[in-house]
């Protein structure tokens, strides 16, 4: 007796991250004749698919975008799956990680918004979207090149053979490697080329204060009678500044050019000079004469090409980025510093539609039979996340046989059908896996949309999932989170360049010449955050951190923690920043009328004098209803927990052990739970109770679990048959 399950938050994510990496179906393999998987197999699956942090996701799945050039239409093509038939040397792999500018920009946006606690309407999105413009890319390189120049200077100063010189050489090698990531890839060179051309063509341009004389670089000097004069400098590089720097910079220029040639088989002079100018700008700017017409044409075509390729990149990568941000948000809910029951996630890396196929679903059943139907709970799956569910409640799996010809509808290709969700739920209910699902994330499912349209839309969409045996395990999460709203997702890259009547180069002021790309909004499914916060609440250390040590039992998990009760939602908040000023009373009344769904709120609230700037949980309910109200999700988890502890503690529900389990003996499991009812995470809290009756006819033990006065039944089959067999 005295069993405690130490892991109650393993989450299964039904999404593809990288199709090139092993997936759940191929790892589970053929299950003909198998009822469960071997320990080795489970270990192998964990090694490939189980993650405990966002960085581990990046490391294990290496999310990648593949890029190649199509010479026929002169366009860049991006794909998430590796294109077959394209030789590897023609293919560029772009890793999506924290260093990726687009990903970095979105993560900074969430961080900044969280730190500032500003709602969407007040947040200056454009300040951060600007991070992916060529100017900002150049800013980042400027920072790197300062360090490169300094380190190379230090290197050049030291004598050959000096041991310190070798140390600096190592450091330089690393820096060259990082720099080469830019110049061995023409796409990465584009923003550099754009900014470089712009700098050279607009040298002397001061924005509005335009002086219509072409620029001649000069030096400040004093005349015979002491007057100040600016003299045009000689074209030969004999200024003091140039000579001082030349020793270092000329060496660096040579080193960069050599490196470029070594890295690129087919080097060209233009790019070679561009690399040198970008990473070592001081001494090279006056080397060549500028051919305005060619350079302006180049600049405009670079910019056009950059815009098109960025557009294509964003369109391709956005769904994957949204998934990655979702996973990031899941892990963000649990503080990094805590070392308790850290949430873990098993990423299937296979599409929901594929997993739910009749031919594949038995692999999921066999897996869950191994992890959830044994008395070892290390790998038990408690939650699952199915984001991006189609808003069409009658959506079918694309692979389903159509028996009768129905109306054909245009369907989004990347959403999960309600049919596939239903199939999974039917399996999850047998293994006690609670499924957090959210609808397709776009501007129609945000906080703003919920605040204006109300909750009925979601209730209607969920109707086919209600009143079913699996309804208890289906948790609809609303609304989805907005990282960048659609209407604020424009990024101005730059303007086209023109040559004016004075033969001067200037940036065009015409509206049609402004190059702008639209990210079209970035959203994160609510199911990620919902699963993340509930997974965090399972950890007793997390609850102690929020409610103090005295109120939380250090051993028990948070299965009974009711986030809706008392002030819990004010204390346990998501890490997401508020999005809107709040829902109206009529919307809240609608939500409260039936207590529908796992609903987040963005409300003005204060706790202990501190203003709350995070999004909170307003409701935490599944789709099981008594006709009036939907049921809180904690009841399902407590029931599953009790069933598992009981199965373990009673030797698979032996009748005599069940009696002992519920006896009044102080060492019985029930007595131990009752002794801890004062704790926030007690399995039985104040007002709770548990009783049992034996149904002799059917051979069932029926538990009446009372939650705060409301009774929920749990039926477990008594292990009499096996005893007889033996």
């Amino acid at each position, binding site marked *: 007796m005295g069993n405690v399950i130490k892991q109650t938050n393993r989450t299964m994510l039904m999404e593809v991250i990288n199709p090139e990496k092993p997936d759940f179906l191929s790892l589970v393999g053929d299950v003909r*004749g198998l009822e469960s998987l071997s320990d080795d197999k489970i270990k192998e699956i964990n090694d490939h698919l189980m993650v405990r942090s966002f960085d581990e996701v990046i490391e294990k799945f290496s999310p990648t975008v593949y890029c190649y050039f199509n010479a026929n239409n002169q366009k860049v093509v991006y794909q998430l799956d590796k294109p077959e038939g394209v030789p590897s040397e023609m293919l560029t792999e772009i890793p999506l990680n924290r260093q990726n500018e687009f990903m970095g920009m979105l993560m900074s946006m969430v961080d900044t918004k969280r*730190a*500032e606690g500003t709602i969407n309407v007040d947040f200056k999105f454009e300040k951060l979207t600007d991070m992916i413009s060529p100017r900002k890319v150049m800013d980042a390189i400027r920072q790197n090149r300062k360090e490169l120049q300094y380190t190379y200077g230090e290197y050049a100063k030291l004598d050959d053979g000096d041991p310190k010189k070798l140390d600096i050489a190592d450091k330089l090698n690393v820096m060259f490697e990082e720099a080469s990531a830019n110049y061995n890839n023409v796409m990465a060179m584009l923003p550099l080329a754009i900014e470089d051309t712009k700098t050279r063509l607009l040298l002397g341009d001061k924005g509005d204060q335009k002086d219509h004389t072409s620029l001649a670089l000069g030096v400040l000097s004093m005349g015979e009678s002491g007057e100040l004069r600016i003299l045009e400098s000689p074209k030969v590089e004999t200024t003091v500044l140039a000579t001082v720097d030349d020793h270092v910079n000329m060496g660096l220029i040579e080193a960069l050019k050599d490196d470029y040639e070594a890295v690129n088989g087919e080097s060209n002079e233009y790019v070679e000079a561009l690399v040198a100018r970008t990473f070592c700008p001081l001494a090279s700017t006056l080397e060549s004469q500028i051919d305005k017409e060619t350079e302006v044409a180049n600049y405009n075509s670079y910019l056009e090409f950059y815009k098109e390729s960025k557009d294509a990149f964003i369109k391709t990568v956005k769904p994957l980025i949204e998934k990655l941000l979702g996973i990031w948000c899941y892990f963000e809910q649990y503080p990094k510093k805590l070392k308790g029951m850290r949430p873990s996630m098993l990423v299937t890396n296979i599409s929901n539609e594929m997993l739910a196929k*009749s031919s594949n679903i038995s692999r999921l059943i066999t897996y869950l039979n191994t992890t959830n139907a044994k008395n070892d709970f290390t790998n038990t799956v408690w939650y699952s996340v199915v984001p991006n569910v189609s808003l069409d409640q009658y959506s079918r799996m694309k692979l389903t046989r159509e028996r009768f010809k129905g109306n054909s509808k245009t369907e989004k290709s990347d959403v999960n059908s309600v049919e596939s969700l239903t199939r999974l739920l039917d399996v999850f209910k047998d293994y006690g896996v609670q499924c957090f699902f959210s609808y397709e994330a776009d501007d129609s499912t945000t906080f703003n949309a919920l605040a204006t349209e109300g909750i009925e839309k979601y209730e209607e969409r969920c109707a086919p999932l209600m009143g079913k045996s699996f309804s208890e395990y289906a948790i609809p999460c609303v609304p989805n989170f907005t990282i960048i709203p659609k209407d604020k997702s424009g990024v101005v890259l730059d303007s086209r360049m023109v040559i004016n009547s004075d033969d001067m180069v200037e940036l065009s002021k015409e509206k049609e010449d402004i190059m702008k790309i639209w990210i079209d909004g970035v959203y994160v499914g609510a199911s990620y955050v919902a699963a993340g916060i509930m997974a965090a609440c399972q950890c007793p250390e997390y609850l102690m951190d929020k409610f103090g040590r005295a109120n939380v039992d250090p051993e028990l998990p948070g299965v009974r923690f009711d986030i809706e009760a008392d002030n819990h939602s004010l204390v346990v908040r998501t890490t997401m920043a508020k999005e809107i000023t709040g829902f109206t009373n009529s919307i809240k009344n609608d939500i409260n009328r039936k207590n529908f769904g796992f609903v987040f709120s963005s409300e003005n609230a204060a706790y202990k004098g501190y203003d709350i700037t995070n999004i909170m949980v307003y409701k935490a309910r599944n789709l099981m209803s008594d006709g009036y109200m939907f049921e809180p999700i904690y009841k399902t988890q407590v029931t599953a927990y009790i069933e598992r502890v009981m199965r373990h503690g009673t030797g698979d529900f032996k009748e005599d052990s069940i009696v002992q389990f519920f006896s009044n003996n102080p060492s019985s499991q029930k007595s131990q739970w009752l002794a801890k009812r004062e704790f926030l995470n007690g399995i039985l809290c104040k007002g709770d109770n548990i009783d049992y009756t034996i149904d002799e006819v059917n051979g069932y033990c029926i538990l009446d679990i009372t939650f705060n006065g409301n009774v929920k039944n749990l039926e477990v089959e008594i292990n009499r048959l096996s005893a007889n067999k033996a």
Partner: protein
Amino acid sequence: MPAAQKRKAKRFLAAGCLLVTLLLAGNLRSFAREDSSRAHTAAGGGELIFLLDTSVSMNSQDQDRAAIEAIRQTLYSLPSGYRSGLVAYHTEIQAAVSLDAGAEALEQELEAMEYRGYTNAGEGLRQALDLFSAGEGVERSIILLTDGEIDMPDPQQRESSRSLYREAAEEAAGKGIRIYIVAIGTKPGNPQMHIFDGAEATGGAVYWEGVSGSLAEILNRILTERLNLPLKEISQERSAGEREDAWRISLPSGASRIRLVLMSEEELGPVTAKCQAESQRMISGKRFAAVELERPSSDQIQLCFEKAAMPAISAYLLAEYDARIQATAQCQIRELERSTEEVKKNIPPRYEHFAELEIRAVDAADPERNLWDPERFEGTEVAYTLNGESRQGVIEQGRIRTTIPADDIGQAEITVEMEEPGAVWYISQADPVRLEKLPEPVFSPEPDYRPLWGILGLLALALAILALRGRKRDAAATDTLQSAVRGKPPFSGKLNLYVVQSRGDEDIPPQTYRLFGRAPGQVSLRRILDTCGLSLGGKEADRIRISPGTEHSLIVTDQAEECTVMRGAEILRKETGYPVYYNEKLTVTFYEEGTEIEIYYKSLKPSEKEETG
């Protein structure tokens, strides 16, 4: 303008500011009242320290000294109940101005501020904490304006400053002091910087210049959103034909003091104000101007801008009222209506004592002037407490009237809280009002009859119903045991069918076939498949027979030739019955058509069986 001239102009401007500051310092003191007996509303009183980073890097990040300008503007936006101080730090503390020193001293220090040295934010925060008073119930905050991370000449000093900063932030959090950090510079930096820990630890917030607005806007947001100061944004009112470079703004009547702050992103130029008040003064900055009025008598103020091109201006108003609450009570007695029964039985009447209370808010300096008289207060809801109990009253004709039962209370102690957008009320509460209880008329009591009759017949009826229900339950139990008594085991459970492989690789949705409730006997797999709408297996499926076994098992017999049936990993021998128990799996493969089905045998819980029934 040549550089020398610019420098001169700058000096002139600085000297001008100083002169204005000195001239107006006297008035300022009168504004910063220190009346300890006065009860403040939550928003009207507090302590605020400006903590300014004056390291050398600020020379580039804050070239036009916008940070200093923003502090000045904030200083004059605060209500008079707020006390403010300043700590400026670089490698060492450059200046520390206590909360009692007043705006004059603060202005002098700001004027002399130089940006040099490193960034010792640890020492700065330490000094700032020491400036706060020790009293309780005061809202305390720090606004830290900085352009970056803690930095000192050597790593040891840097680490020591960081650790001091951390400790000080923890101490601040313990004392409920919140730190709001304003990150100066145009580029949003790394949100994970150490310096930002102060905001996180104390429940404050971080603002980035640019992302969150200009420095002046950010500080204004902190005052309204974080310190909850009721600054009211106002707009100009202009009649037809009026000058475009003049603003006319309505003033609330009865205010003891009014502050009007004008802000702009561009240079504001000279501003003059026309208004009648006991005293008035104008404080000017480069991009702001503040007007302070003491007991204004006119209901409007006119502001004239001398700059040729009017910049875009935002204006905020804060009115302060010094009010005294007056409460009066009129006690009454009323006989409660007696029932016919009571009259018949001559039961003595009961009396109710009640008091009619009237509450007014008068000007503390002129008790004849009722501050709630103006029409805008008519119908306003006001929160007040009566003997500690929270209540809500409505102002009607300049007063709140309420009637309270006074049977058990001897006095009424009233405290009023006023909340009004754009206003702070300093309220001196009324003295407790004594409630004189009027004597009750004497009554001689009569004997009391208490005939009580109980009804016991209903209880007997209830018992009879319970007995009937017991009989019904017994009958139900007999039904469920019927099939077992007959000797043939019934079917139980259900089959979940998954078509793993089909002709043409179609995906066929999973199906469930309920066995429970079927008549005992054999059933063929074909019948099960047909019921599920699956035309698979043909004649072969007809030869796979399933019948109920003992202990809820199924007996599966494979008599087909062109198929294989597996129980788990075991192939079933032909024409031999195999028991299959709950949670076991059968795999059936039909060779000819190349189809494969997995069948899971699952139990049905008693509640699911009821659903089926």
